[in-house]
C-alpha cells in the first residue's frame, strides 16, 4: 500500500509541518548531508526509499534500488568509501541480510547509516505492524566481536534529529550507526517543527593532516580517530575486511598481537566515548520510587502513564534510552540506586529487560512485560503493572 507523501519541507517557514516518521528520516538524512541511498523495498521502511528516490536527485545525490539488501548496504559502503555520506533503510528480514556487510563496515571502519524500521517477525512476520524484536540483532546480528551504535526514535521529530545525529556519530567514530525505528513511528504522522537548517551540528569528514606517503605511519588513537581519505586520492588507501595492522592498514592475519590490538581498538573506540555518545531522557525521576524503562514507541505509552500518575501524586518516573547501544549503563546505575522497581515494557520478549536486569544487579526488582502481537503496549497495560507497586495507593480514585 503506498501512502501519500507530503511535499518537501519548506525551508523558509518554521511553522509545524505534518511529516511521516519515514519521511522525517529521509529529510534528516538530506539535512545531514547524505547524498547516496541504496536499498531494496521492504515494508514498513519503503517510504524512506520512495522519498529519497525523489529528493536525492533534486539535491544532486544518487538513489539506487539494488537487487537485494546485501547489495544495498554494499553499495552504501562503496559510496561512503568514495567520500559520500550514505544510508540504507530496511526492516527485519532485510536487516538480517545486511548483517554481513554491517560487520564489514565495522571492521573496515566505514561511516554509514542503516535504518531498521522494525516489524513483527521472525521471517515475513507481521509486515505492517510494529515490533521491537531487532534490538538484539542490532547489537549482536553481525559476526564476531564488535562495537555498535544504535539509536531509537520515539517521535517523528526524533526520526529527523536522530538521523542527523546518526550521521554525525558515524563520521566521528568511523562506524556504521543503526537507527531502530518501528512500523508505528515510521508510518505515523506528527506535526513537527523542524530545526533551522543552520542550527544543526553536521559532522563533516575531514582529510588526514599528513602527506600521502606519511599516511601509513600515522595511527588513530581512541581520542583522535583519523579520517580515511576517499578512494581515488593520492593516498591510495587499502580497505579490507581482513584483520589488518592498525598502523599501516595492511592485512595481517598471522600476528595475534595485531589482531588483538585491532579487535580491542574497534570495541574501545566506541566504549571509551560512551558518555559522549549515550543519550537518555529521564522524566519525572526526581523522587521516583518506581521507574519505567521504555524506548521507541513504547516510551510514549510509558510517558502517558507517568504524566497521569504524577498528576495523582504517585512517584513514578521514566528512563527512556535514546541510545540503546552502547547500553546506557550510567543511567541504569542511577535508576537502580534510586528506585525499588523497574518496569520494562517492550514489543518483544525480554530482549532489553535482560540487559536492564544485568545492569541493575539486584539493586531493584525488574518486571518485564512483552507483547509480540504487533500491537503497541497501551498505557492501561503499563498502569496495571505499576499499581501493585503502590498497593497502599487508593487506586479506585485513579
Amino acid at each position: 500500500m503506498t501512502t501519500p507523501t507530503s511535499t518537501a519541507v519548506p525551508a523558509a517557514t518554521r511553522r509545524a509541518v505534518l511529516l511521516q516518521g519515514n519521511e522525517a528520516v529521509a529529510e534528516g538524512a538530506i539535512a545531514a548531508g547524505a547524498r547516496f541511498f541504496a536499498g531494496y523495498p521492504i515494508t514498513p521502511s519503503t517510504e524512506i526509499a520512495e522519498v529519497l528516490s525523489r529528493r536525492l536527485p533534486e539535491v544532486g545525490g544518487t538513489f539506487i534500488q539494488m537487487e537485494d539488501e546485501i547489495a544495498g548496504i554494499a553499495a552504501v559502503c562503496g559510496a561512503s568509501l568514495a567520500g559520500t555520506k550514505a544510508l540504507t533503510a530496511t526492516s527485519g528480514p532485510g536487516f538480517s541480510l545486511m548483517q554481513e556487510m554491517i560487520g564489514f563496515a565495522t571492521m573496515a571502519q566505514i561511516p554509514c547509516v542503516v535504518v531498521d524500521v522494525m516489524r513483527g517477525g521472525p521471517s515475513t512476520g507481521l509486515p505492517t505492524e510494529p515490533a521491537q524484536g531487532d534490538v538484539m540483532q542490532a547489537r549482536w546480528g553481525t559476526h564476531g566481536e564488535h562495537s555498535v551504535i544504535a539509536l531509537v526514535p520515539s517521535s517523528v521529530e526524533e526520526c529527523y534529529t536522530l538521523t542527523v545525529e546518526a550521521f554525525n556519530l558515524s563520521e566521528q567514530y568511523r562506524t556504521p550507526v543503526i537507527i531502530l525505528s518501528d512500523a508505528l513511528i515510521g508510518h505515523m504522522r506528527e506535526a513537527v517543527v523542524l530545526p533551522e537548517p543552520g542550527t544543526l551540528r553536521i559532522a563533516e569528514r575531514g582529510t588526514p593532516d599528513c602527506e600521502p606517503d606519511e599516511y601509513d605511519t600515522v595511527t588513530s588513537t581512541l581520542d583522535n580517530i583519523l579520517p580515511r581519505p576517499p578512494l581515488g586520492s593520492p593516498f591510495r588507501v587499502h580497505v579490507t575486511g581482513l584483520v589488518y595492522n592498525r598502523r599501516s592498514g595492511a592485512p595481517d592475519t598471522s600476528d595475534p598481537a595485531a589482531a588483538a590490538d585491532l579487535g580491542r581498538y574497534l570495541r574501545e573506540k566506541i566504549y571509551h566515548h560512551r558518555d559522549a555518545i549515550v543519550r537518555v531522557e529521564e522524566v519525572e525521576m526526581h523522587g521516583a520510587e518506581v521507574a519505567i524503562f521504555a524506548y521507541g514507541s513504547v516510551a510514549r505509552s510509558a510517558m502517558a502513564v507517568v504524566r497521569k500518575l504524577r498528576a495523582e501524586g504517585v512517584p513514578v518516573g521514566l528512563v527512556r534510552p535514546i541510545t540503546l547501544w552502547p547500553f546506557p549503563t550510567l543511567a541504569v546505575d542511577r535508576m537502580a540506586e534510586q528506585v525499588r522497581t523497574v518496569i520494562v515494557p517492550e514489543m518483544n520478549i525480554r530482549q532489553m529487560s535482560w540487559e536492564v536486569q544485568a545492569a541493575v544487579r539486584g539493586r531493584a526488582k525488574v518486571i518485564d512485560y512483552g507483547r509480540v502481537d504487533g500491537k503497541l503496549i497501551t498505557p492501561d497495560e503499563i498502569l496495571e503493572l505499576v499499581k501493585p507497586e503502590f498497593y497502599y495507593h487508593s487506586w479506585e480514585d485513579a
Partner: protein
Amino acid sequence: MSALVDEQLLEAAPTGDPKLPRIKPHTTTEIKQHLRSAKTLWCPGCSNGTITRALIDAVLGLEIDPEKVVVVAGIGCSGRISAYLDYSTVHTAHGRALPVATGIKAADPSLHVIVAMGDGDSSAIGGNHFIHAARRNIDLTALVFNNSIYGMTGGQMSPTTHLGDKSTTSVYGNVEPAFDLCELAHAAGATYVARGTSWGYQQLVNVLAGGIAHSGFSMVEAMAICPVYYGRFNLTSDPAEFLKSQKEHAVPVDKFDEGETRSHDHYPVGLLHHRERREYVTALRSLRERAQEAHNG
C-alpha cells in the same frame, strides 16, 4: 542472445567491432611501480600473478592516472590482488565486490573501477549482483579469475567446475553443468565481453585494456590455472602442462564457428561481444539534471 527487453531503446549508435588496444608489454621495473608488494600468498604455478601483471600492463598501456584507479575485490585467491596493487583498493566480502563497486562508481564517476573476482565470487554467492551490474551497464570492468574451483578453501566445486570433474565436494564427479560466464554476462546485458587465458598473455592484456577503455559494463574472463587443486584432481599438477592445455583448448573467436558447441576443452577467446548502449552513471546524471530542473524551475 541478450536477455534484455527493449534493448534497442537503450542503444546508442551501433558501432562496428572496436579496435582492441594493442598494448606494448612493460618492463618488470615499470610493473613493480604499480605493486605494493611483489610477494604474494599464491601457490607456485598459480596463474594469478600472470593475470595481475596483465592488469597492470593494461593500466600502464592506457596511460591512466594510477591515482584514479580503484580495484575492488571479493574473497578467495583472486581477492588477494587488492592488497598487492598500489592503487586505491578495497577487499570486500565474498561475492560483494560488484555492489560495493557500484556504490563507488556512482558516488565518484571520475574513477576507473576494476572489479576482481573469482568464479565463485561472480557466479555463485555474487551471481545476483553480477547479472544486475551487467543489466544496468554500469561502467565497471569485471575481471573474473576463473580457475573452475574454490582454491582458498581447499578445492571445492564452483559453478564453473565442469560436468564430471572431481573436487573435494564432488568426489564422485560433478553432476552439475558449468556456467559459461561470458555467455551469462552477455545475456544479462554486459556491453563488452571478452575472454583471455593465462597462457595467451598478450591477448589477455589487450582484452583487459579494451574492457577498461569501454564505457559500460565490461566483463573479462581470465581463464586461470590452479595446478594444486583443480589440476591435481582433474588434469595435471604440472603448471607448464596445465598452461599448454589452455593453448589447445582456446580458439580465437574469429576461428570459432557460431554453431560450434562450447566445452571446457574447446572455447572461444578474444572479444566475444560488444555493443554500445547508455551507460548507467550517465543515465543517473541525466536523471539528476531532470529532477533538479523540475525542482528549481
